[in-house]
Structures are given as C-alpha cells and as structure tokens.
C-alpha cells in the first residue's frame, strides 16, 4: 500500500481532534496544556506533510521547527500560569477559576 498525503492528514486530524477534546473536556489544566501540545504537533505534521507532498521545499519543516520553539515557550508560560492558578485557588482544575463570571 502506498503511503500518501491523505494518510498524513488523517493522522494529523485525529491528533488535532484528540488535542481539542483534551482541551475541551479535561479539568486538569496540565492535561489541557498537553492537549494544546497535541494540537500544535498535529499542525506540525500537516506542515511537514504538505512540505513533502505539495511544495517540495523546506518551508514546512522550518515552520514546524518554529512551532516547536513556540510550543516550548508556551509550555513555560502556561506552566507558570498553572502554578499561579494553584497558588490562588489551591487547585489546578480549570473549572475552579471562574471569578470572571461574577
């Protein structure tokens, strides 16, 4: 069986859906953060796949490298936020932080 672009895209969509689900459904902010990482990596897969099958260049790979850096920075910032969250609310659950509502 010949592995082509649709296979990559399918994997990527599945990854994205999983990440999205994690972000939407998990209460734990660390798990949400992990879901975000999944969605970023799903995007990375897409970039690399399109770069290989459609453009025939390295632009996709370069963007994926940027995304990985950005994801690292994002993780640093997000984990700091989670820490602050924990300090203020005594919990890392996302649904305890709803003071905006009142």
């Amino acid at each position, binding site marked *: 069986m010949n592995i082509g672009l649709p296979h990559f895209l399918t994997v990527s969509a599945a990854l994205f859906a999983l990440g*999205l689900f994690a*972000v*939407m*459904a998990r209460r734990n902010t660390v798990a*949400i953060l992990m879901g975000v990482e999944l969605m970023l990596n799903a995007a990375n897969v897409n970039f690399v796949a399109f770069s290989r099958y459609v453009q025939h260049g390295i632009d996709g790979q370069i963007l994926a490298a940027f995304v990985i850096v950005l994801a690292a920075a994002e993780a640093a910032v997000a984990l700091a936020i989670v820490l602050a969250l924990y300090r203020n609310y005594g919990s890392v659950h*996302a*649904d305890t*932080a*709803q*003071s*905006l*509502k*009142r």
Partner: protein
Amino acid sequence: MSDQAIITAAISILLLPLLSYALTFFFGRKLPRKGDFIGVTLMGLALVQALRIFIAFWRVGDPAHRVEWAFTWLDLGGFRLDAGILVDGMTAVMLMVVCIVSFLVHLYSTGYMHGDRRYERFFAFLGFFTFSMLGIVLANNLFFLYVFWELVGLSSYLLIGFFFHKHSAANANKKAFLTNRVGDWGFWLGILAFFTATGTLNYLELFAQVHAGAIKGPLLAWAGVGLFMGCVGKSAQMPLHIWLPDAMEGPTPVSALIHAATMVAAGVYMVARLAPLFGPDALLVVLYVGAVTAFITATIALVKTDIKRVLAFSTLSQLGYMVMSLGAGDSVNAMYHLTTHAMFKALLFLGAGSVIHAVHSQEMPDMGGLRKKMPITFWTFLIATLAISGVPLLSGFYSKDGILGSVLAFGMLEGHYLPFILGITAAALTPFYMFRIVFLTFFGQPRDHHKFEHAHESGRAMTIPLIALAVMSVIAAGIPGNTADKSWFRKFMVAYDVPAIAAEYQARHEAPPVVVAHEDHPHGEAAPGTEPAHGDQPARDEHGDHAAPGDHLAPGAHGEAHGAHGHDDHAAHVHHTAHIRAMIMSILVATLGIGASWWTYHRRRVNPAAVQARLPGAHRVLQGQYFFDELYAATVYRLTLWWSAVCAAFDRIVIDGIVNGTGYLTRLVSWVSGLCDRFLVDGAVNGVAAVLQGAGEGLRRVQTGRVQTYLVYVSASVLVLIVIYRVL
C-alpha cells in the same frame, strides 16, 4: 355761659366717666381703696358741669335754645359723617338726671360692693356705662346715637353679668343682650330708612327734611316703627320686656342705674328726641305698646315676692307710661316722668339694696318689721313709694297725671280710649303693689328672726344717697309741685317747633334742598305762609305740651285743612277737660290702691293666700309673667332651633354632599388613573425590564466563566463557519 363754654362743659361731662373707666380699669388694683374715689370724684365733677349747663339753660329759659357742635369724622366724597353734640334744654335735664343718679350710685356702691373681689372692675364698668349713656344723651346724629346705643348694650351686659360665676347671672346678661339685639335690628333698619330717604343723619336736618316731606306715607310709618323697635328693646317694652326682670341678677346699684338713668331711659329719650320723625301711624303703635306694657307688667308685680323683681316690674309699668305718653304725641310729659321717675326709682332700688344688704335675702317673706332697725332706709323708701304711687305734692303725681291727661285727651280727640283705661288701671295697681312691699318689708312682725337679728342700718356711704334721692323725689316736680307745662320743666322742654327748625335749616343752606322744592302739596299747614303762626303755636304759653299731640297728629290724621286756630282751640279745651278728669281719677285710684294694700297687707283683713286659692288660673298666669318666656321658648327658640336644624341638614346633605361627592369623584378618577398607571405605564416599564432581565437570565447561563466552555463555543462557531463557507 357762652355757647362755647356749654360745649366744652358737655364734652367734659362725656369724657370724665370715660377717664374714670380708664383709670380704674388699668390702675384700680394698685391704688388705695382700689381706686373707688376716682370714679366718685370724676362723677362728682361731671355732676358739677351738668349743674353748670343746667343753670345756664335755666337762665336762658328758652326751650328752643340749641347749641350744636360737630366736626367731620368721616368724609367719603359723596357721604360725610359728622360727629357732634347737640345741647338743648332736654339734654341739660337729661345730663342732670344721668349725672345725679350715676354719682349717687357710685357713692352708694362704695358701701354696697365693699369687699367684692372685683371691686375696682365694678367701678370701671359703672364709669363706662355712664359714658355710653351720656353719649346717647349728647349725640347730634343717628349714627353716633346708634354707636352709643350699642355701647350701652355692651356695658349693661358687663354689669348685669357682673356675678358671672352665678349661672343665672350669666344667662340674664346673655338674654338682655340678645333681646336688645332684636330691638337694635329694627332700630338700625329705621335709621337706614331715614338716611336713604333724606341723605342725612343729623337730627335737625332730618326734622327739616321730614317736615318738607322727604319721607312720608307707609315708609315714614315703618321707619318710625323701626326706630321705635330700638326703644322697645332698650326701654323693655312689650314684647321685648323679658330681659329686664332677669337683669335683676346684676348687683343692686346696677339695677338702680339701669332702671333710673341709663339704659331704659335711653329708649324713651330717643323717641322724645326724635319725636318729629314719628308719623301718626307709628305713634299709634307706640301708644298701644306703652299702654299694654304699663298694664300687664303692673299686674305681674302684684304676685312677685322678690323685692327687686317687684321693682323691676314697676319700672316696666312706669316705662309703659312714658312710652304711652310718647305715643299720644306728648314727649314733654314723657321726659318729665322720666326725670321724676329716675329719682324715686333709683331711691327705691338703692333702698331695696340697703335692705338686701342688711338681711342677705331678696325674698319679702324673709323680711318684715325692719322699720325700727333701718329708720333711714324705711323713711326714704316710704317717700319714694308715695311718689311712685302718685300721691299729690310729690313729684310722681304730677308727671303721671300729665301723662294720663294727655292720653285721655288723645283718646277723646281720636277715639282711642283703651290706652287710657289700661293706664288708669295700672295707676290703681301701682300703689297697691308698692305698698305691699312697704308693708311686707318694714311693717308687721319679723318672719325670719335670725335674719332680723342681723339686720342693721347701712353705712353712711349708702344712706347719704338715699337721703339725697328722697329730697329729689319730693322736689323733682318743683316746690310747689306742678305739671310739666307749669313747672320749671317748661323752661327746658316743649314739643319741637318743627317748622321753625325747618326754616332755620333752610336759611342755613341757602340753596333749598331738593325735597323742599315741591312743597305745594295740599296740606294747608305745610304751606310756607302759615308756618310762623303755626310755629309759634305750641310754644311756651299755657297749653305747652297740650298743643303737641294736635301738632303731631292733626296734619296726618285729618287730611282736611280746617282752620288751624279753630282746631287748636278745640284741642286746648279737650286737653283742659281731660287733665282735670285725669287728675281727679288718678287721685281716686291712688287712694283706692293704697287703701286696698293697707287693708290687705297691714290690717290683714283679706288673706292673699285665699285669693290665690280662689283664682288659681289668674295667679298662675301672673306668676308665670303671662308666659312670655314660655311663648318664646315655644315659638322663637323652637323656630330658631328648627331653622338651625334645617340649615344644619342643608349643610350636611347639600354642602357636605357636594364636597364629599367631589371627593368621591376625585377618588374614582384617580383610581382609574392609578389603574392605567399601574397596568399601562408600569406594565410597559416593567415589561421592558422583565424582557431585559429574562434575556440577561438566559444569557447569563452562556457565560459560565469556564474557559473550556468558551472554547467549545469558539470551536463550534468555527465548524459552523466552515460548513457555511465550504458546503453552502
């Protein structure tokens, strides 16, 4: 004494009692003896001034001599009101009467009222009362007469109710005041009628205008009756006499003052003063009212046992005489009787006061045998009783005789005999009930020994006035006594010489008044040519007052213009005959009355109780004073109450109905308006609010505050947008 001096003296007489009032009222409490000497001294000064005026007029000796003084009090463009005084012989006599009685009453009160809690207030009111009465005497126009008339009403109210803590006294002064108001109502209407018709209020101008015919016919008659109503109220004539017996609730000196000089004298004086304003019809009313009053009150006096009440009814009876005399057109004898009556009636009241002071009771059954205990009171009281009974040589005889003569003459000329019959009957009753007082009080055995033991002669402040008045009672008709037309009185008063006054008035106002212009009416007497002859006629010669009735009544009563001389001769003859007959009859009835009283109450040959038992009906009627009070209670009061009930019902139903109806209507409208407000306006406002709130409630659920929820929305929206753009 010059005219100017007379005016000054008259003004000082008027103001002295007012000064006494003011000083005693404001400073009496702080002065020694509570300031009673102020009143006595100032009244003494007023008496001296009155005496000066009296002597001045005596010297002049002309009854037509008049001094008038006035100043403009109020000027309203078309209407000018003067305040002024008019002094003539009549005024001079009246001033003397008022000042003598008032002075002696002041003096007497220092003894009688001694120790009263409101002693100084009493003297203040006495001064005010005297001032008001002197105002009536001196006024020269109807307006000021009315002002002082009301002041007399007020001050009598204050004095009758002096013991206001007694319920009966408080009621008596209310009754006196309200009864007088009824009379004053008519009086004021009369004044207005004369003012409207003639445009003046001044006495002499009024006389001239009436003479010129400015007011005549029924209007003159009704206006005269109106003026007379004032007299009926103040002089307590039937049917408004009911206040006077109740006025006995006042202190006895006040009764003396009211009955002798002030108040009741005012009515008679007013009619005598305004005699030319009374037409023949009005005079007939006056005559009958006087006669009926004289008779019925004399009969009531027969059965009363309260000494002051008997005296009160005797005053009513004597006032009836005066009014009767006025009605017969003889104002001279009315004033003459007023003068003599003032002396002996003041004496009777002060004597009665002395007795009451001694035994502390007003009931004659508590007295008896006081002659020995109180000799001065007894002798002076006896003199006054003889005078009022009409015993010859004492003043009352002459004046009463003059009245009866004139009334009889009027009857013979005009055919009205009833007044004379009533008058002569009252003349027989007067000595009977007066001697009843004397016998029951001073003779016989004491009936109440405890009171008798305590009785003693009064102090000098009270006996001196008694003696002075006793002397006056004897000599008031002159020495030797004589009827008005022959005694000293003719120097002071004759019937008004109206044509002369009219002529003088016309001369003063050169432009003839409008009403005089059409003087060519058929009455012969009013024609200018006959004026002087007629004018001299009733003057100072021997017929004097005799000509007066003819003078008043002939022009109106007999329209036909027969010769003035023939008429006067006839009238004079009738008067002469009438006076001789009246004199004989009055001596006869006086003897009869005194004899009967002596027989009944001294010799006790007739038992009054048996007579009472025999005539229970008559006794009840007399004791009930002919049930006038009950009659008024049944008619006037009931009518008044009924009318006020009607007014109250009208007020309650119609006025309150309108007000309440308006209220209900307003409430209804506001209720509807309230509904609209609540459901429409509030509905709209609340509706908006509710919609917004509902929307807010709904949207609130969307904003959970959970980041993840928002993310779901975002993702869903993205999906929707993708579907929209890609698929559609």
